[in-house]
């Protein structure tokens, strides 16, 4: 099966069963010719080639590797054909690419040709859905089924979001069962959508980066700067991993549990050989099982929640016996394979000899867009982040702006789909596609299902809620802002010297001024304010939301704007 032509360890990282990768292409990595497959990302090829130290950070010269694996953290930056600061984890390989690894700041090859100026394009649509995960896709189906024209915008090359991640088109699926239930669910949702292709348009590789004039969306797409006006907007941008810094947390081989799942699902790459999972929440049980399925040596799963707490919620959990059995099934399977499930306490320490650590402490809703749209938010201590206010129709306090899915408060794929359906229906009603009464009637079933699911979900959230204790290991020497290399001690001193305003901390220390613009550090700083400086949750103001949502190429702005 695996012809060992080089380092036998690295050959194992590509999962072979059940799929056939795209055709072989050759790329050059640091002067060495490497075989890759069409459809693979540069990150996947680096991992499969045993290259874990992807760059040296500009501030501390410390090695960094793939951490989030989904284009958010910008730790995996490489130089491709002379263009620096390319995210390896989301960039597909192309034959003949020359890839060099960065030491410090990426250098710009001044001889390269200029990128083209972008074209400014205006679109008017009745209904736009931002985010093509379970919530967004369900909203699209609900709205399109009743005749509405729907535009779905997604930042990945293929829709599915995180949980329903699909394989690259160039990969051939021989045995779908090996890819897991989520893959099949996602496929079924996508094929339902495909039947409505006359009404549903999906823009992939499209990034909403700003909101202008309170409602107009600016979208970066290919070489276009798109200004989008929509009557109704559904925000289904999901959630992302709560960052929990630890000493050594920036080392190559430390990644988020969600990131490990992305490697497994959408590139069929094993995240490592000997893996420790640590954190809290059902996701790490799921991912541990997915690793087990493909022969990864899972050394242990450490969980910070107590099973004692679980019993308190047994009645709510029994609302969905099938889901409960599913969850228990994951636990049983790990036990059967002799993988120790440890309860991690504050104060006890155990050492493991591993090459990969997957850290997962739950998810935080992504609220940049609802912020830019002017929606009201409230801090939800269970979620450990801000969530937008929404009513029974999933409408925010801004008329015509709806939310659904993990972006509305982390609640899992099933809840996301029901919320998406409701949001899609009422957004369609707002856009005038169907009558509100119709939306009420059609949405009745989804509402019922949602209520019962939410009880289950709340119970899960209560069991797995994060506690201040998880931040106890943030020593003064621990890097909190990964992008700018800012350590906790510097942040603590700045708070003492100044104020508890996150904007102040940012100016004093540069925390949050890097590529991820605070996504991976500000939640930690907020937690520090709450637990160490006793600031009440409601008094912790978010940093001011500014465009762009993600870094955008300057050539996209080089257009003649008409007002």
């Amino acid at each position, binding site marked *: 099966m695996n012809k060992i032509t080089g380092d036998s360890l690295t050959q194992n990282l590509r999962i072979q069963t059940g799929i056939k990768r795209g055709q072989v292409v050759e790329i050059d990595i640091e002067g060495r010719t490497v075989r890759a497959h069409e459809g693979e990302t540069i990150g996947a090829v680096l991992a499969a080639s045993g290259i874990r130290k992807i760059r040296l950070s500009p501030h501390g010269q410390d090695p960094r590797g793939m951490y989030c694996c989904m284009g958010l953290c910008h730790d995996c930056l490489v130089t491709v054909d002379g263009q620096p600061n390319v995210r390896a984890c989301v960039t597909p390989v192309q034959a003949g690419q020359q890839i060099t690894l960065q030491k410090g700041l990426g250098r710009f090859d001044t001889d390269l040709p200029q990128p083209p100026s972008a074209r*400014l394009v205006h679109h008017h649509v009745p209904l736009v859905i931002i985010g093509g995960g379970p919530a967004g896709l369900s909203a699209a189906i609900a709205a399109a089924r009743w005749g509405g024209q729907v535009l779905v915008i997604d930042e990945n090359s293929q829709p599915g979001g995180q949980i329903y991640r699909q394989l690259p088109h160039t990969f051939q699926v021989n045995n779908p069962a090996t890819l897991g239930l989520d893959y099949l669910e996602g496929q079924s949702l996508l094929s339902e959508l495909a039947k409505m292709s006359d009404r549903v348009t999906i823009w992939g590789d499209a990034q909403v980066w700003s909101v202008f004039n309170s409602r107009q969306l600016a979208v970066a797409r290919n070489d276009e700067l798109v200004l989008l006006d929509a009557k109704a907007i559904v925000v289904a941008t999901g959630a992302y991993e709560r960052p929990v810094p630890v000493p050594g947390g920036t080392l190559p081989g430390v990644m988020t549990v969600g990131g490990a799942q992305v490697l497994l699902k959408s590139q069929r790459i094993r995240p490592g050989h000997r893996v420790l999972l640590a954190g809290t929440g059902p996701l790490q049980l799921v991912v541990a099982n997915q690793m087990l399925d493909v022969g990864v040596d899972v050394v242990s799963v450490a969980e910070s929640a107590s099973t004692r707490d679980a019993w308190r919620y047994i009645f709510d959990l029994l609302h969905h016996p099938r889901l409960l059995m599913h969850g228990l099934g994951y636990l049983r399977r790990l036990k059967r394979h002799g993988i120790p499930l440890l309860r991690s306490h504050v104060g006890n320490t155990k050492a493991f000899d591993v090459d990969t650590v997957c850290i997962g402490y739950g998810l935080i809703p992504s609220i940049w867009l609802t912020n830019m749209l002017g929606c009201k938010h409230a801090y939800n201590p269970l979620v450990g982040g801000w969530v937008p206010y929404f009513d029974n129709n999933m409408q925010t306090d801004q008329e015509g702006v709806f939310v659904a899915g993990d972006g509305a408060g982390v609640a899992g794929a099933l809840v996301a789909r029901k919320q998406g359906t409701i949001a899609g229906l009422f957004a369609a009603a707002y856009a005038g596609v169907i009558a509100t009464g119709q939306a009420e009637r059609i949405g009745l079933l989804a509402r019922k299902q949602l209520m019962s699911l939410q009880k289950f979900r709340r119970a899960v959230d209560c069991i797995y809620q994060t506690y201040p204790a998880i931040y106890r290991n943030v020593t003064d020497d621990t890097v909190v802002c990964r992008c700018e290399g800012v350590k906790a001690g510097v942040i603590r001193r700045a708070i003492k010297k100044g104020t508890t*305003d996150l904007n102040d901390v940012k100016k004093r220390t540069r925390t949050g001024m890097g590529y991820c613009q605070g996504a991976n550090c500000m939640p930690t700083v907020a937690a520090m304010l709450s637990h160490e400086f006793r600031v009440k949750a409601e008094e912790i103001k978010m940093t001011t939301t500014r465009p762009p949502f993600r870094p955008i190429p300057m050539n996209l702005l080089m257009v003649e704007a008409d007002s």
Partner: protein
Amino acid sequence: MNEQVIIIGGGVIGTACAYFLSRRGLEVHVLERNHLGAGASGAAAAIIEDISSSDTPEWLRILGLESYRLILELEDDFEQPLEIIRGGSLHVALNEQEASEIYLFSKEAQGMGHNCELLNGPEARRLEPLLGPKVQAALYNPACYHVNPFRLCEGYLHAALCRGARIDYGISVRSVQVRNDRIERVVTDQGDFDADWVVVATGAYTPQVLPSIGIKIPIFPARGQVIVTEACPQMTQRVLMFFNHLYIKQTASGNFYLGSHTEFAGFENRITLEKITTYAHVLAHAVPILARLKGLRFFAGFRPISVDDLPVIGPVPNCPRLIIASGHGRTGIHYSASTGKAVSELIVDGKTELPIDVFSVDRFEKQSEL
């Protein structure tokens, strides 16, 4: 002198006043309603240049030159470096019309004694390789540097704190009550404070603080939008300036700062597509490498611009112990040191070394009387 001075405003002017006053031995208390440099000082380009034309009021030029020199000297007294980058500036012309204006400007500046040099396109590009082929001409002025504005505020403040000054954040001043020639009290949302002197250094918010005293000062918020790009290795130490107040500078951390027009949009803290595409367009044509970079964040700040474009420095006519230090427009960072020094001289010596009559508080009334 053991007198108590309350400074309202923790931006570059307020902290500079705190610095100079504490150096002269006064008890200083700064009241800041938000955080350090929360206003224009935290959004500033922080370009400090000695340049003038025949239009420049003489006393403004002299105040500017003093401040230019002082900030360089003061760095030694500060806890942290200011990230001073001394590469001079290039005033760039991108078309023939601009080139002829630059030519006129160069003649005037040289006539005023500035040591600047007019360069044609190719010469400008030899001096500054970042400039692209669209450059027609440029005026090179070696007397220009830029700093990190936040470090400057911190520097002033920390040195003042070491000399006994105090600062309180999160306090909003509601009114300053005066009686006869004296300060009766400063009323805030967290209680009243006594003071012998009050310095109002509240930038664009100055008109909101003053109605209680019955004076009107025409200072308006002038919005400027800024683009910050990703960081790259140091490519230039120079400040590149273009027409319509556009500029490019590369900070010590490697990011390029691109700014900034002057718009009057009240306090609407918004980024507009019109502005950022305009300067992305202009600047990327002038400095081609910009088109290859990614924009990381866009933000806006509000500079306090007075109706005649001059700062407002001096005592309030009917209350000499109430001093205004505001309205510095786009040059607050630059004029901070000489403003702070002048305010400290007013309070301690009763007069300033450099004349500041042209910046007087009552000039607007006098002007309207004419």
